[in-house]
């Protein structure tokens, strides 16, 4: 490919530099993930002396420990559950409202659309949000994870733009056959919007998987803890340890002995908490690039 196009010397130098630079750039982005992975499956004693490219003696003890700690598999399941339920609700209902907004015959269409879009810019702030959620009785409730955010103005803009580009004859013919609103939406519009629906599903699910502030502020129930908050709790403990270590430099050696195993455990939890994202997202990449293109055209 490169040889086909014979550029000047400076252009070929640029190409060369460009490939090296891009390779390094990719490395910087991916290496921390890789490092945490090889550390988590290495012998902790050897790993702490420095590992760079390969695991030092495979050792899955930390995973066995982590998974036998009931809280972590449980938190993982809670995260998974809330992500799946939220994504389904968010994608379905945001699409339905977006579809309604394409209906020119609907009275007050523009007013309602502006009303929904303005929700994107109005932010009540932390405390009023907290008080409202508490008043709704969502404290210590699973619903807190899945109810707020189902209708998302940004997703609605994306989906509405997409639906507007579809030929209207599809819908008209179904209407002739006597199909009602829900039938048209469920059977025709929703399935045909797959590229944008997939994009929105990626945004929504990744967002939901990563959110933890709701859990952190409003949920104390151990049974409802998400993996992010559990990970943070473990890390924080370590951070406390690290600051203690810095103030007591003299005790550093004895401290290090203690820290060995927790270090590996932390890395294992990190791996577990990013695993779903790493496994799922490369497959959806093609879709969200399309989605961004729609967004970029709009912007």
């Amino acid at each position, binding site marked *: 490919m490169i040889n086909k196009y014979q550029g000047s010397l400076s252009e070929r130098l640029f190409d060369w530099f460009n490939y090296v630079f891009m390779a390094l750039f*990719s490395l910087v982005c*991916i290496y921390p993930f890789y490092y945490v992975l090889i550390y988590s499956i290495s012998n902790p004693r050897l790993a702490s002396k420095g590992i*760079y490219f390969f695991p030092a003696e495979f050792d899955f003890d930390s995973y066995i420990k982590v998974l036998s700690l009931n809280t972590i598999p449980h938190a993982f399941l809670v995260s998974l559950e809330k992500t799946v339920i939220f994504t389904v609700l968010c994608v379905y209902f945001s699409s339905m409202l977006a579809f309604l907004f394409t209906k020119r015959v609907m009275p007050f269409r523009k007013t309602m659309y502006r009303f929904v879009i303005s929700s994107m810019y109005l932010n009540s*702030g932390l*405390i009023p949000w907290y008080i409202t959620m508490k008043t*709704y009785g969502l404290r210590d409730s699973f619903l807190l994870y899945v109810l*707020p955010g189902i209708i998302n103005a940004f997703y609605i803009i994306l989906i509405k733009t997409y639906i507007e580009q579809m030929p209207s004859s599809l819908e008209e013919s179904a209407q002739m056959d006597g199909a009602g609103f829900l039938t048209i939406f469920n059977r025709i519009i929703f399935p045909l919007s797959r590229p944008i629906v997939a994009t929105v599903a990626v945004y929504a699910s990744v967002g939901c998987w990563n959110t*933890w502030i709701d859990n952190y502020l409003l949920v104390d129930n151990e049974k409802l803890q998400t993996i992010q908050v559990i990970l943070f709790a473990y890390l924080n403990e370590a951070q406390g340890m690290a600051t203690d270590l810095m103030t007591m430099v003299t005790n550093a050696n004895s401290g290090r002995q203690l820290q060995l195993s927790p270090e590996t455990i932390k890395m294992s939890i*990190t791996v577990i908490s990013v695993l779903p994202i790493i496994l799922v997202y490369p497959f959806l990449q093609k879709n969200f690039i399309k989605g961004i293109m729609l967004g970029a055209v709009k912007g």
Partner: protein
Amino acid sequence: MTYKSNKTGWRYFLIAMPFMIYVTAFYFVPLFGWIYSFYNYNPALSFSQLQFVGFDNFMKMYNEWSEIYRVLKNTLAMSVLSILVTPLPLVAAIMLNEVKHDKFKRFIQTVTTLPNFISWIVVFALTFAVFSNEGLYYTLLRNLHLDVPVIGIMGNNGATWFFQLGLSVWKGIGWTMIIYIAAIAGIDNEQYEAARIDGAGKFGLMRHITIPGLAPTFFVLLLLQISNLLNNGFDQYFVFYNSLVADKIEVLDFYIYKVGWLVSDYSYATVLGMVKSLLGIALLFAVNYLSRKTKGESLL
């Protein structure tokens, strides 16, 4: 509007109603909480029992100006720094566009956007693994028999702003790069062909076609960033907070959390949040006005 379509129209309207109620409940009802800025909020009391204090909570902003000044300085420093690096993803996208091997290109895209999809907690976990005193970086220095500072970069007060900037660039650059790649794909191919016929080389194409073609996207992203001057987010500063870097990492969003949560001054935190939101909206409208004046295009 004919009679028949009007009837279906009202049916759609009825279907839309529950959605409007939902939006009101979850986006607009919380705004009524702003009223607590005029009261002395106490979670144990009902609304009628609360003591009305007028603008007392607003006066607090004036009285604690030195605190607010410090926090604002951090907020603006981080925002301005991230505005200064807005050309980075643009440059990276132009370079990525020059990669002609499709597989390599897709690999770079996949790998560089990955950090965008992880939470700040995970970013913190990775940073800790790499930059803590026992982490990769200092272990490597030790193994190379180089000097290792007693206090690592995560606790280095003087480096905080730049370290946090680096982290947010690392997390976000791949994603923004894809937005530019999408915009490059939108540039008319004929322009490139015409320029090539006119004898433009690789750099000529970049300078005369790609960069001007990306300017509108760049401008929009820049304006959005300016309108978010006071919003640097909360997660990042919350997870990287430690006592050593406290006075450099406290941005507005973090400070509001601190006042509300750790000090339990709900009313004052509400005031700060409200003022921040209103300033943010004002900024957004100002930027939008500028955009309409200069480009004839509206952002909103």
